[in-house]
């Protein structure tokens, strides 16, 4: 009972004044309520440790695994490559043991613009990511719509089927596509034995193979946010549209599509952002004459051992990706403000 006497600061004000006037013990009681032993939950709530305690966990995570590495990479991008371990010049050095000198080389960023390899890789990556995102949207929207409209049992089955490929390693699934797409692979063999084609179609090492790989791998990331948006739609809105004289297709364009924009944006970003930096799929399935930026980055780090240029590539890519994220965040905030 004594433990329960503690009241939070907000409810303390609500103690009826009447009791203070009628009972001679009221002042003592109020003192006890004010200074009695606290319950720990109320204590945490009323004091400064409450909110920080909750946010501390994600904050620590982000600082340790995002901010610190980012600062290190950012620092290396201003350094110069040397033959040493680690293979870059430290940014700071002591001059005559008295002056701390900080040397920043902007040459790495400048270099990205002098060699066409980098710019063309960036542009190619953005193009591949954009086309793949569009393909995912075109494929994923009807699927998400169908799943959202199906009966609960069928819906759960479909959702499980969408997630099922994740049980197998991503790398293995991409390798499986090689077996399907290569010149003496499953698809060519079947088509040739049926007599539809006489020469194998070259599908490996083409843009086509990269699109297949990316769309196949990232489709669930498009379907799931779209599904969770479409599932919440109120179906009476479509009935209302039909009632007001709108044909089903027009009702879809005027009601369902605009209301699903948050889902489209979320799904597109979940596909676009990893697709830009994709390394495995273009390396295994893609062209050899045109690299994507993820491959360039990894070659720069591991083959070339030029950490400063590799860091500059990474920072440039990050900036390239931050722009759509910021757009998304602003859009989401606007949506939240509406609710």
């Amino acid at each position, binding site marked *: 009972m004594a433990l329960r006497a503690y009241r939070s600061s907000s409810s303390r004000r609500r103690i009826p004044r009447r009791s203070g006037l009628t009972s001679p013990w009221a002042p003592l009681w109020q003192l006890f309520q004010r200074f009695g032993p606290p319950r720990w939950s109320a204590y945490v709530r009323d004091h400064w440790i409450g909110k920080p305690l909750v946010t501390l966990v994600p904050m620590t995570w982000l600082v340790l695994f995002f901010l610190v590495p980012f600062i290190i990479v950012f620092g290396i991008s201003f350094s110069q490559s040397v033959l040493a371990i680690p293979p870059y010049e430290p940014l700071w050095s002591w001059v005559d043991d008295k002056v701390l000198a900080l040397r920043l080389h902007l040459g790495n960023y400048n270099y990205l613009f002098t060699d066409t390899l980098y710019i063309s890789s960036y542009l190619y990556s953005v193009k591949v990511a954009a086309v793949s995102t569009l393909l995912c949207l075109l494929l994923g929207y009807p699927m998400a719509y169908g799943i959202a409209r199906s009966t609960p049992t069928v819906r759960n089955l479909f959702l499980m089927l969408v997630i099922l490929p994740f049980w197998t390693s991503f790398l293995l699934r991409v390798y499986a596509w090689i077996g399907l797409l290569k010149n003496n692979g499953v698809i060519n063999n079947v088509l040739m034995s049926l007599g539809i084609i006489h020469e194998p179609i070259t599908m490996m090492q083409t843009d086509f193979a990269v699109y297949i790989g990316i769309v196949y791998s990232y489709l669930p990331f498009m379907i799931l946010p779209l599904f969770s948006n479409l599932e919440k739609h*109120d179906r*009476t*809105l479509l*009935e*209302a*549209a*039909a*009632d*007001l*004289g*709108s*044909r089903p297709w*027009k009702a879809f364009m*005027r*009601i369902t599509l*605009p*209301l699903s924009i948050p889902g489209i944006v979320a799904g597109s970003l979940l596909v676009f952002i990893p697709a830009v930096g994709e390394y495995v799929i273009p390396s295994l399935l893609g062209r050899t004459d045109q690299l994507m930026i993820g491959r360039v980055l990894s070659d720069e780090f591991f083959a070339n051992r030029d950490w400063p240029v590799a860091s500059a590539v990474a920072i440039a890519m990050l900036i390239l990706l931050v722009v759509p994220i910021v757009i998304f965040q602003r859009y989401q905030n606007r949506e939240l403000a*509406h*609710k």
Partner: protein
Amino acid sequence: MAEQRTKTPEPWLDPHAEAYIRVENVTKRFGNFVAVNNVSLRVYKGEIFCLLGGSGCGKTTLLRMLAGFEPPSSGALFIDGQNMADIPPYERPVNMMFQSYALFPHMTVAGNVAFGLEQERIARPEINRRVAEILDIVKLGEYAKRKPHQLSGGQRQRVALARSLVKRPKLLLLDEPLGALDRKLREHTQFELISIQERLGVTFVVVTHDQEEAMTLASRVGVMNHGEIVQVGTPRQIYEFPATRFVADFIGSVNLFEGQLSEDEPDHVRVRCEELPAPVYVDHGLSAPPLALCWVAIRPEKLTLGRERPVGTDNWAHGVIRDIAYMGDMSVFMVRLDAGREVRVTQANRTRKPEEQFSWDEPVYLSWDASSPVIGLG
């Protein structure tokens, strides 16, 4: 419109009148469940017809069939003489106001109201003019640019009404139109609805579970139970002459007694009820088999309380007042009869003199007029 009303105030009594809506033997099944069971109905132009019933009685399903959202399992629906069987909702001359209002959340008030007009080939200026006009009627002119989530419940309800009226439908279907409003706003809106209906000359079919709402709005009420229409009539007919025991019990409050016919003449019947000391005398015949079991329903306001035993041998009872609820204009008395049964009596408070008031535990006599009881078989 008002003039037309006085000419033919009761088109359902005119055998030559053309029904605007004809529902013919319509049945709707969902799996094994029969939601609407062999319903036939006629609604005339300019009526406010209320479908009244408890939840799950099939009233909303019937409304959705009129709007075209559900096809009937069997039977036919005619609107303005046209069979609606193969006509999709977007081609019907009908608009509906949804229970949840179903406003488009991403559009402004004006956008919502304009939506229906945009589906037809109407020029922009004409659309804008009609939207402004209807928003004025529902008194929402200055809210045109707001989004639905920025409005109160009552305002949303008016947007929904404006949206369903702007296409000038011949028939407006309303699904629990006032369900979400508080009492005062409700009463206000009820009268507003009636005046809009009279001004625009639209036929209304209203679904409601609230009998008070049905009584105030309706020209006629159709009482539904278990997918069937049990009685169709004016509010007065339904209240004073309920056709079945269910209707008597569902509309308003009533005291129901079971009994047996003891006399059945062309001009009167007498019923013996175990719970009443005297027989019930009703001033009309029933033409039922002798000694048939029947029910007798007496409305609380048709009972009279008295301290002296009424003259005559019929239509009285004796009991003790168990409870009194003073409601200002009237009082509700719960009287326990000598047979143990509790009876509800309401009396208008005609005087302010305290000595004439009945009080707790006072023995009283109940009496009623021979025209008051409603009697039915079964």
